[in-house]
């Protein structure tokens, strides 16, 4: 499988204020069909994309937050959340949705998709990518 590349979607924007979060999630869903080695990184205001309890009703905008929970079904299982960004914003891991995937190799055991990483760890992961998508 030498033609499998490492793709990372780098999410640094809050949802709703701009469309970048939503339209980049659309890329991830389409990209899942390409059988590449995919990961998502959330840092800076991007961590806000994953918060629980989003209700857009009074803004008239479309609520797309439920889509993140479907990522496991698309075999997108590596979701890196950068810890400093959470800390700066007063967020805890528990403020984010609990995203999981089912591991086919372990009798469909449910596993966490979100992996908390430091800036240094995320930098190492980025250095290892073939392609980074920025929105």
């Amino acid at each position, binding site marked *: 499988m030498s033609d499998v590349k490492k793709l990372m979607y780098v999410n640094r924007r809050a949802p709703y*204020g*701009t*469309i970048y979060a939503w339209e980049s999630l659309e890329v991830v869903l389409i990209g899942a069909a390409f059988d590449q080695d995919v990961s998502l990184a959330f840092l800076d205001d991007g961590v806000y994309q994953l918060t629980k309890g989003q209700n857009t009703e009074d*803004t*008239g*905008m479309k609520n797309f937050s439920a889509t993140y929970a479907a990522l496991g079904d698309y075999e997108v299982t590596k979701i890196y959340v950068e810890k400093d960004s959470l800390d700066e914003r007063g967020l805890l891991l528990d403020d984010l949705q609990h995203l999981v995937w089912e591991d086919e190799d372990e009798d469909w055991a449910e596993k966490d998709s979100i992996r908390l990483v430091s800036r240094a760890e995320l930098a190492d992961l980025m250095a290892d990518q073939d392609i980074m998508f920025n929105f």
Partner: protein
Amino acid sequence: MKLTIQVNEGPYQHQAADSAYNFAKAALAKGHEIFRVFFYHDGVNNGTRLTTPPQDDRHAVDRWSELAREYELDLVLCVAAAQRRGIVDDGEAERNGKDATNIADGFRISGLGQLIEGAVQSDRLVVFGD
């Protein structure tokens, strides 16, 4: 209260376009007068009838058109900004030799003076942008 509202960004990309619409609707519901809504910069992109958003999403253009119909709103697209972004009515198409128009119902294209006039004639100017 008499209001002029300025919209600096296009639909969907920035929430500014949504905020402006929601604010306008609330002001009208409270009985205030909207003297003019002036679309500037990428804001002119709110005035194209060629938009087809997903069916489960709001239609950012049509709802302006509907609000304009209901309240006889004056929705003005800045001509200089519209020329740069390709928003065209019959007059502009003829002037600039374009083979199509895309302006939506309820909008008109006019000069920047309309923004100044709106601001001066109104009690408040409220600006929505990026």
